[in-house]
């Protein structure tokens, strides 16, 4: 018996069925450490606290101390970070920050391509938090505040 589309409703149902059976894409496996400027008033963050900061739900360290979220443009590092800490798809993660940028709302963020530049920015910027591969050598004015 040959299946034939009977109506536009069949086409909609078919598309929804495909959506149900498609698997989740797996991202990179590198271990990621969360780093922050040495003056940040936190020495250890729980995975939940990290997630809230990087999804823009937590915007301040303390009163009048805004958080500056430093995002990597390195897709491998970013992919591993999202998988390890955020548990969302890269697209969903990007949407959070695009939404903030386009509406002018939410936490402050900056994107940096080069890992050395990223570490340097975190080291010299009050309130900055970012992420690097866990085996990265760090200067003394940067501290690790999260590592799974």
């Amino acid at each position, binding site marked *: 018996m040959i299946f034939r589309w009977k109506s536009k409703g069949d086409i909609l149902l078919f598309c*929804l069925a495909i*959506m149900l059976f*498609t698997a*989740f*894409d797996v991202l990179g496996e590198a271990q990621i450490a969360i780093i922050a400027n040495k003056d940040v008033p936190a020495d250890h963050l729980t995975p939940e606290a990290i997630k809230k900061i990087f999804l823009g739900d*937590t915007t301040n360290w303390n009163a009048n101390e*805004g958080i500056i979220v430093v995002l990597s443009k390195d897709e491998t590092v970013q992919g591993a970070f999202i998988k390890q800490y955020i548990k969302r798809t890269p697209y969903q993660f990007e949407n959070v920050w695009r939404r903030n940028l*386009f509406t002018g*709302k939410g936490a402050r963020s900056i994107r940096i391509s080069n890992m050395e530049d990223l570490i340097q920015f975190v080291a010299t910027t009050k309130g900055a938090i970012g992420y690097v591969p866990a085996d990265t050598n760090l200067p003394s004015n940067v501290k690790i505040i999260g590592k799974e």
Partner: protein
Amino acid sequence: MRTMYLYKILTCLMIWLMVNHQAALAEDVQVHGFISQGYLKTDHNNFLAETDDGSFQFNEMGINFTAYPTSSLKIGCQFFAMDLGDVGNDTIVVNWAFAEYHYQNWLGFRAGLIKTPFGLYNDTRDYDSLRTAIFLPTSNYIELLRDTLNTTKGILIFGNVPLGPVGSLKYQIGTTGTQTSPESGSAKFLKSANGFSEISDIVVGERIYGFHFQWMTPVDGLSFGMTYETFDYGFDAIKPTRIGDVIIDVPITFKAHEADYLVFFGEYIWNNWVFAAETYRHTEDSDVYHGTSGAFLQSADVDTRKSFYVKVSYRFTDWLETGYYYSRFQLQPDTDLDTEKLKEHCLSFRFDINPYWLFKLEAHLMNGEFGVQPDNDGHIYNEWVLYAAKMSFSF
């Protein structure tokens, strides 16, 4: 002429920025923008533009600047232009411009021209790259009301209050106002929905009071919320009225004493899936008076409590996403008039060519005539299809 000049400068600046993929012009000023161009076609009727023949009068563009004088203080603005049929016509407006002081996670202040918090997606509806579908569901996001609902001028307090083991609560509470001209989409919407030949002296929401809550539950990705707004509005209009065999122009004055919006919403983000639903209740006690004598003519109350949508979207790969929604708009709870209803099934496909460039295709199976204009032969059909395509760039 001056507008065209500004438009050309804006376009050149945005293209230059996109070509260079620069996210900032200076260390402390962030610059972002977007341009989109769409195409609309209906098999019957005209909807939002001259769609019976197909229309390219469907585009948006914007560029925004944000600076941080201190770690808790932000100042920014966005220039925006859009065209949708005879609404917008690429006139550049300031879309948002505000100062924000974020004292703590749970307390911040925002003042200026503000993106209105309204349901799940109102504050992001200008940004095509943030969603799967080209059009948001008509039940909650009527396109012609966008210019009035999208941006308001005033003060908001906002924050994110931790609730311990039950998650957290995001809130925005404020008082704002909006300015609406007879050329606005909202005026054109009122004109078309009520059969007025002319509309003038429109005042919508000189003072709007409202709040927006979103409970971020302990279940990752699951949130529920509500928006409430209350305001007054009114306008003068000319209503062509048939008396016997003669049609005469009757001047009227319309006053909505208590117009309220109440929206409940929920969203669940789970792996590659996004599920969302919103209700939409707009109620108003409105009276129509004779424009010259001031005599009461009739009531024109509205209650859209049966309006809602449900939607689902799924991302297959980093370049392909699809979504479906069902939306129902109903102007009165028990109406039998096709002109007061619009149901739609929408299927969308989104193709991300690269992180800055995307293309979308979608089809809407429509049932109803609310907001619908006759086709080029003067006929209105109850069942019809809207096709839309759109390409967007953002940086």
